[in-house]
């Protein structure tokens, strides 16, 4: 965790990127449950110091495709929403919060909180639907022909498609369960 904090600091310092979010980080930490992942983010100050925060959320033991794209797309909407809720911020360069804003109060942290809430709901529901459909996770079973293996693999890919359209409410109004914390 300490080295990740330094890495974020270095990215601000060297590249001058105002906002950074590292998605899906596996972090072992005594306070984190075993099967958890974290998102780590920061908005730099005027002197390029980091303001790091993390949001820890439960990992779902399943392969999903397109989670990175979903995270990015939702972030566009939610960062905009959070910035517009901070008076005057949308008229400042790169929407960088004033130096006195604490890491946990950053619009970026609020945006990530909402994005993760939506993602957790959609992923949970996608996983449930895969279970209901009785999709076999067996793609390399004994006695399976190459054609059978290929078909099983392709059907598994299809079942792992995120169920976005069926769960628009999870995108619009997710229940926020995981909150930003200090690194």
């Amino acid at each position, binding site marked *: 965790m300490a080295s990740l904090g330094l890495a974020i600091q270095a990215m601000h310092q060297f590249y001058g990127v105002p906002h950074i979010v590292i998605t899906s980080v596996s972090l072992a930490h005594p306070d984190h449950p075993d099967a958890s992942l974290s998102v780590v983010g920061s908005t730099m100050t005027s002197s390029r110091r980091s303001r790091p925060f993390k949001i820890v959320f439960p990992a779902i033991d399943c392969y999903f495709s397109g989670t990175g794209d979903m995270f990015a797309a939702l972030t566009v909407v939610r960062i905009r929403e959070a910035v517009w809720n901070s008076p005057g911020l949308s008229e*400042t360069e790169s929407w960088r919060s004033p130096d006195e804003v604490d890491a946990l109060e950053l619009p970026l942290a609020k945006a990530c909180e909402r994005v993760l809430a939506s993602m957790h709901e959609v992923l949970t529901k996608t996983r449930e639907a895969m279970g209901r459909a009785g999709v076999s996770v067996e793609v390399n079973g004994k006695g399976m022909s190459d054609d059978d293996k290929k078909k099983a693999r392709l059907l598994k890919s299809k079942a792992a498609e995120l169920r976005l359209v069926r769960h628009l409410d999870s995108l619009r109004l997710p229940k926020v369960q995981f909150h930003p914390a200090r690194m």
Partner: protein
Amino acid sequence: MPGLNPGAEELTWSLGNHTGYGQWTGSRVSAQEITDLYRGLKESYLDDFDMMLSGYVPGAEALEAVGRIAQELKEKGKAKPGSFFWVLDPVMGDNGTLYVAQDVVPMYKSLIPHADLILPNQFEAEYPPPFFFHHTTFCHFLTRI
């Protein structure tokens, strides 16, 4: 979402399914086609974007074309602070596998200083050779703080 007016979506590939299936048909959009699409938007005064999201771009030339668009919009927005914001997802790979051409990596490196927000995953943030830092520079930096 109040205030959000999506303008256009520009695809850098046109495939029947995503590449996670291990097989696909279709084609990738060339750098020239990306540049042409943007020129068309500009000529019809449809380039008044206030946000841009860039994601999976499989080749360095196409990525360079995407980067040029972002930098042009950024330059145009300079007169009015906050009027353009670039979200750059440096899609390179995940879980130990690089899934873009090797020359995409240095291209991202040159574009990142122009982005407002970057969204690397853990693999991309740590990609060797150290993507974000030259090793000695980073060590030097660490000794200074």
